[in-house]
C-alpha cells in the first residue's frame, strides 16, 4: 500500500468515526419523481421555470378565461386586487400597488399564479 492510499484510508476511517452516525432514523428518502411533483418554486434567475412559451394574444385569452371574473376585464375594476396601473403613485398619499407598479420580478408573477390562482382552484 502506497503512502498516498494509506493516507486516504486513514482519512476515510477518521471521517467514519466522526460522522454523526445516528442510532435512529427519521422519515424516508424522497424520490426525484415525487420531489418534481412539489418543486414548483421559481427564482428571479428563471431557475424552476417549466419549459414552455406563449404569445400576448394567447395570454389575453387565458386571462379572460381564468382571471377577469375577479380582476376585471383589463386587470382593473374587479372584485379582487387591481393588477395594472399605479406608476407614479408610490410616493403619494394614496399609493396604488399593482403588478405593474410594484412587483419587481416577472418570475414572481409566474410563481404566484401557478401556485395560488385561480383562487378557488389553485395550482
Amino acid at each position: 500500500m502506497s503512502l498516498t492510499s494509506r493516507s486516504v484510508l486513514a482519512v476515510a476511517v477518521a471521517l467514519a468515526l466522526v460522522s454523526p452516525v445516528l442510532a435512529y432514523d427519521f422519515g424516508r428518502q424522497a424520490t426525484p419523481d415525487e420531489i418534481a411533483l412539489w418543486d414548483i418554486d421559481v427564482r428571479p434567475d428563471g431557475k424552476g421555470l417549466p419549459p414552455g412559451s406563449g404569445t400576448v394574444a394567447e395570454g389575453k385569452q387565458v386571462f379572460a378565461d381564468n382571471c377577469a371574473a375577479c380582476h376585471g376585464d383589463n386587470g382593473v375594476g374587479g372584485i379582487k386586487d387591481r393588477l395594472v396601473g399605479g406608476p407614479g403613485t408610490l410616493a403619494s398619499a394614496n399609493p396604488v400597488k399593482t403588478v405593474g407598479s410594484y412587483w419587481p420580478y416577472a418570475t414572481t408573477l409566474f410563481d404566484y399564479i401557478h401556485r395560488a390562482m385561480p383562487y378557488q382552484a389553485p395550482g
Partner: protein
Amino acid sequence: MADHGNSPPDLVESDRLRASPSRRSFFAASAGLAGSLIAAPVAADSLADVPPREDGANLSGHSERSQYVKLARIPEAGPGKRNVDPSDAINSKAPLDKLFGGITPTDLHYERSHSGAPDLDPAKHRLLVHGMVGKPLVFNVEDLKAMPSVSRVVFIECTGNGWENWKKADENLTVQHTHGLVSTNEWTGVPLKFIVDLVGKEPDSHWMLAEGGDAAGVARSIPLTDEILSEAFVAYGQNGEPLRPAHGFPMRLVMPGFEGNLNIKWLRRLKFGDQPWMTSWETARYTQLQANGKATQFQLRMDTNSVITTPSGTMVIKPGYQRINGLAWSGHGRIAKVEISTDGAKNWRQAQLTQPALPKAQVRFQMDWTWEGKPTRIVSRSTDDRGNVQPDRKSFIAAMGTNALFHYNAQQTWSIDETGRVRNVLD
C-alpha cells in the same frame, strides 16, 4: 376594572383608607405597592342576593367557557373592514382587552390565513425537505413527534398589527382593533437545526424556502442566520395540544421574534438554496413602502412594542383609583422596562412587569393610578433588553412615512375626556 368603576366617585381617598386598613396592608405587602392606593369595596349589595348553591353540570370530556363569559375574535377584510362576509375575511383579531396574563387562549390566538384554514388529515400530510441537501427526506407528523423536542412560549405577531393608525385614528376603535394581531402561546416541536442536520444541508446554502399546504401555498425565503438556526422550530403542539387548524395543523414553522407570515402554517416543504426566491409575499405583499416610493424588503423582525389594554378604546372610567395594565413584547428579546405616562407623554413612571418576562413573549405590565376626572392622555412605551425603545408616533412616522402598512410599533395613545370615555388617538 374600568368598565364597572370599582372606585365610587363620591368616596374620597381618606375615607377609603379608613374603610379597610387590613386590606390596605394586604395589598401593600403582597403587591409591593406604595400603599397609598387600595382596591375599594364594590357597591353595596347583600349576600342574601347571591343565589343558593345547587347541583352542577355533569362532568364532561371537554370543558366550555361559562355562559357568562363572552370572548371572541373579530374577523376583518383589511384595515377598518369589519362586519364582512366570512369568505372575505383575511385575519381575525384577539380580544386583548378581555384577557389576563401573558398567554392567549388557544381558540382566541389571532389568525391570519391567506386562503382559508384547511383542516388537513395528519395521516396524509407530509413534509418534504430538499434542495441543497445531502439527503432529501419526507416526514410525517409522527416522525416529528418521535424527534427530540423543544417547548417555548413566544409571541407571534402579524406584521400588519397596528395598521389602523398609520394615517388617522378612528376614535371608536378598541385595543382589539388596534393591536389584536398578536398573541402568545407555548409551542412544541422539533428544532430546525435537528432537521437541517438530518438532511445534511450543504454549507453554501444560506436560504430556506418554507411553504404551506394551504390553497395559496404561502411561501417565504428565510435567511439561515445563526439566530434563526438556533431558535426556529417545526411545531406540532400549541398550548399542550395538537395545533388548531387555524394555526397550521398538523405542523407549522415557528420563528421566534419574526414576522407572523414567516411562521408558515400547514408546513409541507422546506427547500434549501443559495439565494432568496422572491415570492409574492416577500415582494408584493410584506414589504414596507417608504415615503420616497421605494420599498424595503426582508424587514423580518418584529420590533419593540406595547399597548395599554385597560383602560383602552371605548371603555368608560370613573374618577379615582385605576389599575392600568397592558402587554409589551419585542422580537429582539426580553422586555426590560415599560413606562407609562398619564399626562400625554410629559412625565413617565415605571410599570410593574408580571414575571417571568420571557424573551420574545408578551409580558403583562400594570401600574396604579388615580384619575382626577380631568381630560388627559395615557400612553405606554417599552424598552427591551437590547436597549431598543418603542418610538413615539411622531418620530416613527418621520422615519417611516405613512404608506409602509406593516411594522407599525409606535406608542399607542388613549385619550380620556371629562366623562371618562377612552378614545383611540394618534398622539
